[in-house]
Protein backbone atom coordinates (compact mmCIF):
# COMPACT_ATOMS: atom_id res chain seq x y z
CA UNK A 1 0.00 0.00 0.00
CA UNK A 2 1.30 3.41 -0.90
CA UNK A 3 -0.11 6.70 0.32
CA UNK A 4 -1.92 8.73 -2.34
CA UNK A 5 0.26 11.49 -3.84
CA UNK A 6 0.24 14.66 -1.76
CA UNK A 7 -1.50 17.66 -3.29
CA UNK A 8 1.25 20.32 -3.28
CA UNK A 9 -1.37 23.07 -2.92
CA UNK A 10 -3.06 21.60 0.14
CA UNK A 11 -0.84 23.33 2.68
CA UNK A 12 -1.19 26.76 1.05
CA UNK A 13 -4.97 26.47 0.94
CA UNK A 14 -5.21 25.48 4.60
CA UNK A 15 -2.94 28.37 5.60
CA UNK A 16 -5.09 30.81 3.60
CA UNK A 17 -8.27 29.56 5.27
CA UNK A 18 -6.83 29.82 8.78
CA UNK A 19 -5.42 33.25 8.01
CA UNK A 20 -8.76 34.51 6.66
CA UNK A 21 -10.60 33.37 9.77
CA UNK A 22 -7.94 34.82 12.05
CA UNK A 23 -8.29 38.20 10.32
CA UNK A 24 -12.08 38.19 10.11
CA UNK A 25 -12.71 37.65 13.82
CA UNK A 26 -10.89 40.75 15.15
CA UNK A 27 -12.36 42.75 12.25
CA UNK A 28 -15.91 41.94 13.39
CA UNK A 29 -14.89 42.68 16.95
CA UNK A 30 -13.32 46.05 16.21
CA UNK A 31 -16.29 47.05 14.07
CA UNK A 32 -18.49 46.41 17.14
CA UNK A 33 -20.73 44.19 15.07
CA UNK A 34 -23.37 42.80 17.41
CA UNK A 35 -26.32 41.25 15.58
CA UNK A 36 -28.33 40.94 18.81
CA UNK A 37 -28.76 44.74 18.90
CA UNK A 38 -30.89 44.52 15.76
CA UNK A 39 -33.55 42.53 17.58
CA UNK A 40 -33.47 44.42 20.84
CA UNK A 41 -37.01 45.74 21.63
CA UNK A 42 -35.95 49.34 22.23
CA UNK A 43 -34.03 49.55 18.98
CA UNK A 44 -36.88 47.86 17.14
CA UNK A 45 -39.27 50.51 18.46
CA UNK A 46 -36.96 53.37 17.51
CA UNK A 47 -36.46 51.99 14.02
CA UNK A 48 -40.19 51.37 13.67
CA UNK A 49 -40.97 54.97 14.62
CA UNK A 50 -38.45 56.21 12.10
CA UNK A 51 -39.91 54.07 9.33
CA UNK A 52 -43.53 54.92 10.24
CA UNK A 53 -42.85 58.51 9.17
CA UNK A 54 -42.06 57.21 5.69
CA UNK A 55 -45.63 56.25 4.82
CA UNK A 56 -47.40 57.41 2.86
CA UNK A 57 -44.89 58.69 0.30
CA UNK A 58 -45.36 62.36 -0.58
CA UNK A 59 -47.22 62.66 -3.89
CA UNK A 60 -48.32 66.30 -4.06
CA UNK A 61 -47.90 68.02 -7.40
CA UNK A 62 -45.29 70.57 -6.32
CA UNK A 63 -43.07 67.92 -4.74
CA UNK A 64 -43.40 65.56 -7.71
CA UNK A 65 -42.29 68.40 -9.95
CA UNK A 66 -39.23 68.96 -7.76
CA UNK A 67 -38.62 65.22 -7.66
CA UNK A 68 -38.71 64.91 -11.45
CA UNK A 69 -36.28 67.76 -11.82
CA UNK A 70 -33.90 66.28 -9.24
CA UNK A 71 -34.15 62.85 -10.87
CA UNK A 72 -33.16 64.27 -14.24
CA UNK A 73 -30.32 66.15 -12.60
CA UNK A 74 -29.10 62.99 -10.87
CA UNK A 75 -29.31 60.94 -14.06
CA UNK A 76 -27.42 63.64 -15.93
CA UNK A 77 -24.78 63.81 -13.21
CA UNK A 78 -24.31 60.04 -13.08
CA UNK A 79 -24.23 59.69 -16.87
CA UNK A 80 -21.88 62.60 -17.52
CA UNK A 81 -19.65 61.57 -14.62
CA UNK A 82 -19.46 58.00 -15.83
CA UNK A 83 -18.78 59.09 -19.41
CA UNK A 84 -15.83 61.18 -18.25
CA UNK A 85 -14.69 58.32 -16.03
CA UNK A 86 -14.83 56.00 -19.05
CA UNK A 87 -12.68 58.35 -21.11
CA UNK A 88 -10.18 58.44 -18.26
CA UNK A 89 -10.29 54.71 -17.54
CA UNK A 90 -9.95 53.17 -21.00
CA UNK A 91 -6.45 54.40 -21.90
CA UNK A 92 -5.18 53.63 -18.40
CA UNK A 93 -6.72 50.14 -18.47
CA UNK A 94 -5.10 49.43 -21.84
CA UNK A 95 -1.73 50.46 -20.43
CA UNK A 96 -2.16 48.47 -17.24
CA UNK A 97 -3.54 45.18 -18.58
CA UNK A 98 -0.95 42.49 -19.13
CA UNK A 99 -3.21 40.87 -21.72
CA UNK A 100 -2.07 43.45 -24.30
CA UNK A 101 1.60 43.57 -23.44
CA UNK A 102 3.85 43.21 -26.46
CA UNK A 103 7.08 43.35 -24.48
CA UNK A 104 6.08 40.27 -22.47
CA UNK A 105 6.18 38.18 -25.64
CA UNK A 106 9.51 36.48 -25.75
CA UNK A 107 10.16 38.44 -23.50
CA UNK A 108 11.14 41.09 -25.97
CA UNK A 109 12.79 44.51 -25.99
CA UNK A 110 11.65 47.23 -23.63
CA UNK A 111 10.30 44.93 -20.97
CA UNK A 112 11.74 46.97 -18.11
CA UNK A 113 10.36 50.35 -19.22
CA UNK A 114 7.02 48.73 -20.10
CA UNK A 115 6.73 47.18 -16.65
CA UNK A 116 7.54 50.57 -15.10
CA UNK A 117 4.91 52.27 -17.24
CA UNK A 118 2.34 49.65 -16.24
CA UNK A 119 3.20 50.09 -12.57
CA UNK A 120 2.95 53.87 -12.95
CA UNK A 121 -0.47 53.69 -14.60
CA UNK A 122 -1.63 51.26 -11.93
CA UNK A 123 -0.52 53.76 -9.29
CA UNK A 124 -2.46 56.53 -11.04
CA UNK A 125 -5.58 54.34 -10.97
CA UNK A 126 -5.06 53.67 -7.28
CA UNK A 127 -4.65 57.35 -6.48
CA UNK A 128 -7.77 58.23 -8.48
CA UNK A 129 -9.99 55.83 -6.60
CA UNK A 130 -8.34 56.09 -3.19
CA UNK A 131 -10.30 59.23 -2.32
CA UNK A 132 -14.07 58.66 -1.93
CA UNK A 133 -16.12 60.66 -4.43
CA UNK A 134 -17.79 62.56 -1.61
CA UNK A 135 -14.44 64.04 -0.58
CA UNK A 136 -13.78 65.20 -4.14
CA UNK A 137 -17.32 66.59 -4.22
CA UNK A 138 -16.69 68.61 -1.05
CA UNK A 139 -13.59 70.01 -2.68
CA UNK A 140 -15.20 70.83 -6.03
CA UNK A 141 -18.32 72.38 -4.48
CA UNK A 142 -15.94 75.06 -3.28
CA UNK A 143 -14.62 75.56 -6.81
CA UNK A 144 -17.84 75.26 -8.86
CA UNK A 145 -20.36 76.27 -6.23
CA UNK A 146 -23.44 74.24 -5.30
CA UNK A 147 -24.81 72.07 -8.10
CA UNK A 148 -24.19 68.93 -10.12
CA UNK A 149 -21.00 70.10 -11.85
CA UNK A 150 -18.99 69.28 -8.74
CA UNK A 151 -20.59 65.84 -8.61
CA UNK A 152 -19.76 65.12 -12.23
CA UNK A 153 -16.08 65.80 -11.72
CA UNK A 154 -15.95 63.90 -8.44
CA UNK A 155 -17.54 60.86 -10.10
CA UNK A 156 -15.20 61.10 -13.09
CA UNK A 157 -12.12 60.93 -10.89
CA UNK A 158 -13.10 58.18 -8.46
CA UNK A 159 -15.01 56.08 -10.96
CA UNK A 160 -12.28 56.52 -13.54
CA UNK A 161 -9.93 54.78 -11.12
CA UNK A 162 -12.40 51.98 -10.42
CA UNK A 163 -13.36 51.38 -14.04
CA UNK A 164 -9.73 51.37 -15.15
CA UNK A 165 -8.69 48.82 -12.56
CA UNK A 166 -11.59 46.47 -13.19
CA UNK A 167 -11.44 46.80 -17.00
CA UNK A 168 -7.77 45.82 -16.90
CA UNK A 169 -8.59 42.82 -14.73
CA UNK A 170 -11.55 41.70 -16.84
CA UNK A 171 -9.32 41.79 -19.91
CA UNK A 172 -6.82 39.58 -18.12
CA UNK A 173 -9.44 37.14 -16.88
CA UNK A 174 -10.82 36.11 -20.29
CA UNK A 175 -8.87 33.80 -22.60
CA UNK A 176 -5.90 35.96 -23.56
CA UNK A 177 -4.45 33.57 -26.14
CA UNK A 178 -6.32 35.05 -29.12
CA UNK A 179 -4.97 38.54 -28.39
CA UNK A 180 -1.51 37.18 -27.75
CA UNK A 181 -1.55 35.29 -31.04
CA UNK A 182 -2.49 38.51 -32.83
CA UNK A 183 0.25 40.51 -31.11
CA UNK A 184 2.66 37.74 -32.05
CA UNK A 185 1.79 38.29 -35.69
CA UNK A 186 2.42 42.01 -35.56
CA UNK A 187 -1.02 43.37 -34.76
CA UNK A 188 -1.35 46.67 -32.93
CA UNK A 189 -2.59 46.64 -29.34
CA UNK A 190 -5.93 48.23 -30.19
CA UNK A 191 -6.55 45.77 -33.01
CA UNK A 192 -5.62 42.87 -30.74
CA UNK A 193 -8.09 44.27 -28.21
CA UNK A 194 -10.85 44.41 -30.81
CA UNK A 195 -10.26 41.02 -32.42
CA UNK A 196 -8.84 39.05 -29.52
CA UNK A 197 -10.26 40.31 -26.23
CA UNK A 198 -13.47 42.27 -26.77
CA UNK A 199 -15.44 39.40 -28.34
CA UNK A 200 -14.92 37.47 -25.11
CA UNK A 201 -14.95 40.34 -22.63
CA UNK A 202 -17.62 42.71 -24.03
CA UNK A 203 -20.42 41.25 -21.93
CA UNK A 204 -18.52 41.54 -18.67
CA UNK A 205 -17.25 45.02 -19.50
CA UNK A 206 -20.75 46.23 -20.37
CA UNK A 207 -22.39 44.82 -17.29
CA UNK A 208 -19.69 46.21 -15.02
CA UNK A 209 -20.04 49.63 -16.64
CA UNK A 210 -23.82 49.66 -16.21
CA UNK A 211 -23.39 48.49 -12.62
CA UNK A 212 -21.03 51.40 -12.02
CA UNK A 213 -23.60 53.75 -13.54
CA UNK A 214 -26.07 52.39 -11.01
CA UNK A 215 -23.52 53.02 -8.25
CA UNK A 216 -23.00 56.54 -9.60
CA UNK A 217 -26.72 57.20 -9.28
CA UNK A 218 -26.54 56.06 -5.65
CA UNK A 219 -23.33 57.97 -4.99
CA UNK A 220 -25.04 61.11 -6.16
CA UNK A 221 -27.28 60.98 -3.06
CA UNK A 222 -24.32 61.14 -0.73
CA UNK A 223 -22.79 63.89 -2.81
CA UNK A 224 -26.12 65.72 -2.75
CA UNK A 225 -25.78 65.91 1.01
CA UNK A 226 -22.66 68.02 0.51
CA UNK A 227 -24.41 70.23 -1.99
CA UNK A 228 -23.73 68.59 -5.34
CA UNK A 229 -27.37 68.78 -6.46
CA UNK A 230 -29.80 66.15 -7.65
CA UNK A 231 -31.87 63.70 -5.62
CA UNK A 232 -29.32 63.79 -2.81
CA UNK A 233 -29.77 67.46 -2.18
CA UNK A 234 -33.54 67.00 -2.21
CA UNK A 235 -33.20 64.08 0.20
CA UNK A 236 -31.03 66.20 2.45
CA UNK A 237 -33.68 68.91 2.59
CA UNK A 238 -36.49 66.42 3.22
CA UNK A 239 -34.56 64.71 6.00
CA UNK A 240 -33.72 68.01 7.65
CA UNK A 241 -37.41 68.92 7.60
CA UNK A 242 -38.14 65.46 9.02
CA UNK A 243 -40.45 64.82 6.07
CA UNK A 244 -40.45 61.01 5.87
CA UNK A 245 -43.04 60.96 3.08
CA UNK A 246 -40.75 62.90 0.78
CA UNK A 247 -37.78 60.76 1.74
CA UNK A 248 -39.67 57.58 0.91
CA UNK A 249 -40.81 59.01 -2.44
CA UNK A 250 -37.16 59.67 -3.22
CA UNK A 251 -36.21 56.15 -2.16
CA UNK A 252 -38.89 54.76 -4.49
CA UNK A 253 -37.33 56.70 -7.35
CA UNK A 254 -34.00 55.12 -6.41
CA UNK A 255 -35.52 51.68 -6.53
CA UNK A 256 -36.92 52.43 -9.99
CA UNK A 257 -33.54 53.71 -11.18
CA UNK A 258 -31.79 50.58 -9.96
CA UNK A 259 -34.41 48.46 -11.70
CA UNK A 260 -33.80 50.49 -14.85
CA UNK A 261 -30.04 49.88 -14.62
CA UNK A 262 -30.71 46.18 -14.15
CA UNK A 263 -32.89 46.15 -17.25
CA UNK A 264 -30.28 47.97 -19.33
CA UNK A 265 -27.61 45.56 -18.14
CA UNK A 266 -29.71 42.51 -19.00
CA UNK A 267 -30.50 43.95 -22.42
CA UNK A 268 -26.85 44.73 -23.16
CA UNK A 269 -25.77 41.25 -22.09
CA UNK A 270 -28.37 39.77 -24.41
CA UNK A 271 -27.26 41.93 -27.32
CA UNK A 272 -23.58 41.10 -26.73
CA UNK A 273 -24.09 37.37 -26.09
Amino acid at each position, binding site marked *: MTAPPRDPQARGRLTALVLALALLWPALHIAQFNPAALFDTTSLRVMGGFLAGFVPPALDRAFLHLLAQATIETLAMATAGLALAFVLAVPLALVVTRALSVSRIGPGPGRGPAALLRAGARLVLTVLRACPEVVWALLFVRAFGLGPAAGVLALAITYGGMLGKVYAEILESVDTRPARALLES*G*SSRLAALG*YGLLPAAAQELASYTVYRWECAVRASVVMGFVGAGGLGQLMDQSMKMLNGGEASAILIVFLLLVLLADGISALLRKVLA
Partner: protein
Amino acid sequence: MLDLRGISLIHPNGQQALDGVDLRVAAGERLAVIGPSGAGKTTLLRIAGLSLRPTQGDVQVMGEAPWRLPARRLRALRARIGMVHQAPPLPPRLRVVSAVLAGRLGQWPTWRALASLLHPVDRIGAQAALARLDMAERLFDRCDRLSGGQLQRVGIARVLYQAPALILADEPVSALDPASADATLRELVAQAERSGAALVASLHALDLALRWFDRIVGVRGGRVAFDLPRAQVSEAMLQRLYAGDSAAAAPAPTGAEEEGTAATAPARAPQLMCR
Protein backbone atom coordinates in the same frame (compact mmCIF):
# COMPACT_ATOMS: atom_id res chain seq x y z
CA MET B 1 14.73 32.81 -44.29
CA LEU B 2 15.07 31.17 -40.92
CA ASP B 3 18.37 30.51 -39.22
CA LEU B 4 18.47 29.00 -35.74
CA ARG B 5 21.85 28.23 -34.21
CA GLY B 6 22.52 26.44 -30.97
CA ILE B 7 19.03 27.08 -29.65
CA SER B 8 18.37 25.97 -26.07
CA LEU B 9 15.29 26.76 -24.09
CA ILE B 10 14.75 26.11 -20.41
CA HIS B 11 11.23 26.78 -19.20
CA PRO B 12 10.80 28.85 -16.02
CA ASN B 13 9.94 25.61 -14.19
CA GLY B 14 13.39 24.29 -15.01
CA GLN B 15 12.45 21.85 -17.72
CA GLN B 16 14.72 21.88 -20.72
CA ALA B 17 12.55 21.93 -23.85
CA LEU B 18 15.29 22.39 -26.43
CA ASP B 19 18.96 21.62 -26.21
CA GLY B 20 21.32 22.97 -28.84
CA VAL B 21 19.07 22.89 -31.90
CA ASP B 22 20.37 24.10 -35.27
CA LEU B 23 17.92 24.65 -38.08
CA ARG B 24 18.24 26.56 -41.32
CA VAL B 25 15.33 26.98 -43.70
CA ALA B 26 15.64 28.67 -47.09
CA ALA B 27 12.90 30.61 -48.85
CA GLY B 28 10.54 28.27 -50.68
CA GLU B 29 11.62 25.25 -48.65
CA ARG B 30 9.02 22.90 -47.18
CA LEU B 31 9.98 21.19 -44.00
CA ALA B 32 8.12 18.86 -41.65
CA VAL B 33 9.11 18.56 -38.00
CA ILE B 34 8.23 15.17 -36.56
CA GLY B 35 8.86 13.47 -33.26
CA PRO B 36 7.13 12.03 -30.21
CA SER B 37 4.86 14.11 -27.99
CA GLY B 38 6.86 16.42 -25.78
CA ALA B 39 9.89 16.31 -28.04
CA GLY B 40 9.96 20.11 -28.33
CA LYS B 41 8.26 20.61 -31.70
CA THR B 42 5.89 23.33 -30.53
CA THR B 43 8.66 25.12 -28.64
CA LEU B 44 10.81 25.07 -31.76
CA LEU B 45 8.00 26.57 -33.84
CA ARG B 46 7.26 29.21 -31.23
CA ILE B 47 10.90 30.24 -31.21
CA ALA B 48 10.87 30.44 -34.99
CA GLY B 49 7.64 32.46 -34.77
CA LEU B 50 9.28 34.96 -32.39
CA SER B 51 6.83 34.26 -29.62
CA LEU B 52 9.45 32.67 -27.38
CA ARG B 53 12.96 33.90 -26.87
CA PRO B 54 15.49 31.10 -26.46
CA THR B 55 17.56 30.88 -23.30
CA GLN B 56 20.60 30.39 -25.48
CA GLY B 57 21.45 30.58 -29.15
CA ASP B 58 20.98 32.86 -32.14
CA VAL B 59 17.74 33.47 -33.99
CA GLN B 60 17.75 35.08 -37.42
CA VAL B 61 14.60 35.57 -39.47
CA MET B 62 14.68 37.07 -42.96
CA GLY B 63 18.18 38.33 -42.36
CA GLU B 64 17.33 40.14 -39.13
CA ALA B 65 18.22 39.37 -35.53
CA PRO B 66 14.71 39.89 -34.12
CA TRP B 67 15.58 40.10 -30.44
CA ARG B 68 17.94 42.97 -31.09
CA LEU B 69 15.45 44.98 -33.15
CA PRO B 70 13.57 47.99 -31.78
CA ALA B 71 9.92 47.23 -31.02
CA ARG B 72 8.54 48.80 -34.21
CA ARG B 73 10.72 46.76 -36.55
CA LEU B 74 10.16 43.60 -34.53
CA ARG B 75 6.45 44.13 -35.05
CA ALA B 76 6.92 44.58 -38.80
CA LEU B 77 8.95 41.39 -38.91
CA ARG B 78 6.28 39.49 -36.98
CA ALA B 79 3.66 40.63 -39.48
CA ARG B 80 5.54 38.64 -42.15
CA ILE B 81 5.40 35.40 -40.19
CA GLY B 82 2.20 33.36 -40.23
CA MET B 83 1.49 30.91 -37.42
CA VAL B 84 -1.09 28.15 -37.53
CA HIS B 85 -1.73 27.22 -33.90
CA GLN B 86 -2.54 23.70 -32.81
CA ALA B 87 -5.59 24.98 -30.90
CA PRO B 88 -6.84 27.89 -33.02
CA PRO B 89 -6.83 30.98 -30.75
CA LEU B 90 -10.23 32.30 -31.81
CA PRO B 91 -12.65 33.97 -29.38
CA PRO B 92 -16.01 32.14 -29.52
CA ARG B 93 -18.03 35.26 -30.32
CA LEU B 94 -15.82 36.44 -33.17
CA ARG B 95 -17.28 35.98 -36.65
CA VAL B 96 -15.40 33.80 -39.10
CA VAL B 97 -14.99 36.71 -41.52
CA SER B 98 -13.22 38.80 -38.85
CA ALA B 99 -11.18 35.81 -37.71
CA VAL B 100 -9.82 35.43 -41.24
CA LEU B 101 -9.32 39.16 -41.89
CA ALA B 102 -7.34 39.31 -38.63
CA GLY B 103 -4.52 37.74 -40.65
CA ARG B 104 -3.67 41.20 -41.99
CA LEU B 105 -3.87 43.14 -38.72
CA GLY B 106 -0.10 43.47 -38.82
CA GLN B 107 -0.32 45.18 -42.19
CA TRP B 108 -3.40 47.33 -41.73
CA PRO B 109 -3.48 50.64 -39.91
CA THR B 110 -5.38 50.38 -36.65
CA TRP B 111 -8.34 52.50 -37.83
CA ARG B 112 -8.90 50.12 -40.74
CA ALA B 113 -8.68 47.10 -38.43
CA LEU B 114 -11.25 48.57 -36.03
CA ALA B 115 -13.56 49.71 -38.83
CA SER B 116 -13.43 46.23 -40.30
CA LEU B 117 -14.61 44.79 -37.02
CA LEU B 118 -17.86 46.73 -37.42
CA HIS B 119 -18.19 46.24 -41.16
CA PRO B 120 -15.76 43.72 -42.68
CA VAL B 121 -13.76 45.45 -45.40
CA ASP B 122 -12.36 42.68 -47.58
CA ARG B 123 -15.20 40.17 -47.60
CA ILE B 124 -14.13 38.86 -50.99
CA GLY B 125 -10.60 38.16 -49.79
CA ALA B 126 -11.82 36.40 -46.67
CA GLN B 127 -14.28 34.33 -48.66
CA ALA B 128 -11.60 33.35 -51.17
CA ALA B 129 -9.28 32.15 -48.40
CA LEU B 130 -12.10 30.14 -46.83
CA ALA B 131 -13.16 28.71 -50.18
CA ARG B 132 -9.74 27.13 -50.63
CA LEU B 133 -10.47 25.10 -47.49
CA ASP B 134 -14.06 24.35 -48.46
CA MET B 135 -15.41 26.71 -45.80
CA ALA B 136 -16.77 29.59 -47.89
CA GLU B 137 -20.35 29.16 -46.72
CA ARG B 138 -19.37 29.74 -43.07
CA LEU B 139 -18.16 33.31 -43.75
CA PHE B 140 -20.65 35.05 -41.45
CA ASP B 141 -20.99 32.33 -38.81
CA ARG B 142 -19.66 32.84 -35.34
CA CYS B 143 -16.64 30.80 -34.32
CA ASP B 144 -18.57 29.06 -31.53
CA ARG B 145 -20.87 27.53 -34.16
CA LEU B 146 -17.98 25.60 -35.74
CA SER B 147 -16.59 22.16 -35.04
CA GLY B 148 -12.99 21.64 -33.98
CA GLY B 149 -11.95 20.74 -37.50
CA GLN B 150 -13.71 23.76 -38.97
CA LEU B 151 -12.07 26.05 -36.42
CA GLN B 152 -8.70 24.64 -37.35
CA ARG B 153 -9.41 25.47 -40.99
CA VAL B 154 -10.43 29.02 -40.06
CA GLY B 155 -7.03 29.35 -38.38
CA ILE B 156 -5.38 28.18 -41.58
CA ALA B 157 -7.54 30.48 -43.72
CA ARG B 158 -6.27 33.38 -41.59
CA VAL B 159 -2.70 32.51 -42.51
CA LEU B 160 -3.61 32.03 -46.20
CA TYR B 161 -5.14 35.51 -46.12
CA GLN B 162 -2.11 36.92 -44.34
CA ALA B 163 0.16 35.59 -47.13
CA PRO B 164 3.30 35.64 -44.96
CA ALA B 165 6.86 35.01 -46.12
CA LEU B 166 7.34 32.32 -43.49
CA ILE B 167 4.51 29.94 -42.66
CA LEU B 168 4.77 28.02 -39.39
CA ALA B 169 2.15 25.40 -38.68
CA ASP B 170 1.87 23.52 -35.41
CA GLU B 171 -0.10 20.32 -35.96
CA PRO B 172 -2.24 22.16 -38.51
CA VAL B 173 -4.50 19.21 -39.35
CA SER B 174 -4.73 17.36 -36.03
CA ALA B 175 -8.51 17.86 -35.80
CA LEU B 176 -9.30 16.99 -39.42
CA ASP B 177 -10.41 13.75 -41.02
CA PRO B 178 -7.83 12.14 -43.33
CA ALA B 179 -9.35 13.48 -46.55
CA SER B 180 -9.64 17.11 -45.38
CA ALA B 181 -6.24 16.88 -43.68
CA ASP B 182 -4.72 15.99 -47.04
CA ALA B 183 -6.65 18.69 -48.90
CA THR B 184 -5.75 21.30 -46.28
CA LEU B 185 -2.04 20.52 -46.45
CA ARG B 186 -2.28 20.74 -50.23
CA GLU B 187 -3.59 24.31 -49.87
CA LEU B 188 -0.87 25.27 -47.40
CA VAL B 189 1.76 23.87 -49.75
CA ALA B 190 0.13 25.62 -52.72
CA GLN B 191 0.17 28.92 -50.81
CA ALA B 192 3.86 28.48 -50.03
CA GLU B 193 4.62 27.65 -53.65
CA ARG B 194 2.61 30.56 -55.03
CA SER B 195 4.16 33.15 -52.71
CA GLY B 196 7.63 31.64 -52.48
CA ALA B 197 7.21 31.36 -48.71
CA ALA B 198 9.00 28.82 -46.57
CA LEU B 199 6.72 26.33 -44.83
CA VAL B 200 7.61 24.62 -41.57
CA ALA B 201 5.00 22.31 -40.09
CA SER B 202 5.01 19.94 -37.17
CA LEU B 203 2.99 16.81 -37.84
CA HIS B 204 2.02 13.63 -36.07
CA ALA B 205 0.81 11.91 -39.23
CA LEU B 206 3.97 10.61 -40.84
CA ASP B 207 2.36 9.70 -44.14
CA LEU B 208 1.29 13.33 -44.56
CA ALA B 209 4.76 14.56 -43.62
CA LEU B 210 6.35 12.25 -46.18
CA ARG B 211 3.83 13.10 -48.89
CA TRP B 212 3.85 16.90 -48.72
CA PHE B 213 7.26 17.90 -47.40
CA ASP B 214 10.68 17.70 -49.05
CA ARG B 215 12.70 17.77 -45.90
CA ILE B 216 12.03 15.93 -42.66
CA VAL B 217 13.45 16.98 -39.30
CA GLY B 218 13.14 14.42 -36.52
CA VAL B 219 13.13 15.92 -33.02
CA ARG B 220 13.43 13.94 -29.84
CA GLY B 221 14.14 15.01 -26.28
CA GLY B 222 14.76 18.59 -27.34
CA ARG B 223 17.44 17.70 -29.88
CA VAL B 224 17.46 17.24 -33.64
CA ALA B 225 17.75 13.49 -34.23
CA PHE B 226 17.99 13.79 -38.02
CA ASP B 227 17.50 16.44 -40.68
CA LEU B 228 17.27 14.84 -44.09
CA PRO B 229 15.63 15.05 -47.50
CA ARG B 230 12.50 12.93 -47.56
CA ALA B 231 14.06 10.24 -49.74
CA GLN B 232 16.77 9.50 -47.20
CA VAL B 233 14.47 8.96 -44.25
CA SER B 234 14.33 5.26 -43.48
CA GLU B 235 11.82 3.20 -41.55
CA ALA B 236 14.55 2.35 -39.02
CA MET B 237 15.15 6.04 -38.30
CA LEU B 238 11.45 6.57 -37.69
CA GLN B 239 11.31 3.53 -35.40
CA ARG B 240 14.20 4.92 -33.39
CA LEU B 241 12.64 8.40 -33.27
CA TYR B 242 9.41 7.13 -31.78
CA ALA B 243 10.79 4.24 -29.72
CA GLY B 244 9.81 4.25 -26.05
CA ASP B 245 12.43 5.53 -23.63
CA SER B 246 12.66 2.07 -22.11
CA ALA B 247 11.02 -1.22 -23.01
CA ALA B 248 9.29 -1.28 -19.63
CA ALA B 249 7.94 2.27 -19.86
CA ALA B 250 4.27 2.41 -18.98
CA PRO B 251 2.04 3.69 -21.76
CA ALA B 252 1.71 7.46 -21.56
CA PRO B 253 -1.65 8.75 -20.36
CA THR B 254 -3.90 9.56 -23.27
CA GLY B 255 -5.11 12.91 -21.95
CA ALA B 256 -4.36 16.32 -23.35
CA GLU B 257 -0.66 16.83 -23.66
CA GLU B 258 1.25 20.00 -24.15
CA GLU B 259 4.28 19.93 -26.32
CA GLY B 260 7.50 21.26 -25.00
CA THR B 261 6.59 21.19 -21.34
CA ALA B 262 7.32 17.55 -20.78
CA ALA B 263 10.48 16.90 -22.69
CA THR B 264 11.14 13.68 -20.87
CA ALA B 265 7.67 12.16 -21.05
CA PRO B 266 7.81 8.53 -22.11
CA ALA B 267 7.08 8.25 -25.80
CA ARG B 268 4.17 6.19 -26.93
CA ALA B 269 4.64 3.02 -28.90
CA PRO B 270 5.34 3.86 -32.54
CA GLN B 271 2.39 4.01 -34.86
CA LEU B 272 4.13 4.85 -38.03
CA MET B 273 1.44 4.58 -40.63
CA CYS B 274 -1.34 6.29 -38.75
CA ARG B 275 -3.57 6.83 -41.69
